[in-house]
């Protein structure tokens, strides 16, 4: 699973992108967020306030309850501010 981080999430995790293998119980975005928080203090801090985070699954806006699978591209970012 490919995870992308933008804006403050990229800064706080210190990563633009990472490839992870999640445990079987991670089946939706909410589960992924909880699991990512355990990867380190930067991740935990970045994902602390989920209300400030938007998510896209395979480049489509998604919600916390959106199902995810092993080959998905999942991006986390703040609400878009436009160009």
């Amino acid at each position: 699973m490919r995870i992308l981080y933008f804006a403050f999430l990229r800064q706080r995790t210190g990563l633009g992108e990472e490839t992870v293998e999640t445990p079987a119980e991670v089946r939706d975005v909410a589960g992924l967020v909880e699991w990512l928080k355990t990867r380190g203090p930067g991740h935990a801090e970045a994902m602390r306030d989920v209300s400030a985070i938007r998510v896209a699954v395979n480049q489509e806006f998604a919600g916390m309850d959106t199902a995810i699978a092993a080959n998905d591209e999942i991006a986390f970012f703040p609400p878009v501010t436009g160009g």
Partner: protein
Amino acid sequence: MTVKVQRDDFDVGAEIAALTAGRTDIGGVATFLGLVRDIAGGEAVSAMTLEHYPGMTEKMLADIESQARERWALDEILIIHRFGRLEPGDRIVLVATASAHRKAALESCEFLIDWLKTRAPFWKLEETGQGEHWVEARESDDEAAARWEEAPRKAAE
């Protein structure tokens, strides 16, 4: 239909000329050119960095272009959006719409720039005297884009 998401600057005159080159059926081209302002939210801005989501940006831009084509009778649409670090006075975005009739060109241009300014997957990091900060989404911009979400229509003229 052309969408370009690029780091480099663009040449407005050349882009508009290319849009209409050899065409004699276009009555008008409406354009909007967005520039970096030296002030934002009452604060002096020395530079900003636009970050985007490569791949998703192009996909969303192509989608909004299709929506514009469904609503208005357009001959050509051009969207150029820059990313990276930009300074006050720099060009950020160009939208150009060409149609036989001016109303279709003008309305679709406004629709596209409202969308780009609010819904496009870009994030702005502003540099000010107080350091750097990520710009937060603005409500008045959301309202401008929301106006377009009423019943679809196709301008007759």
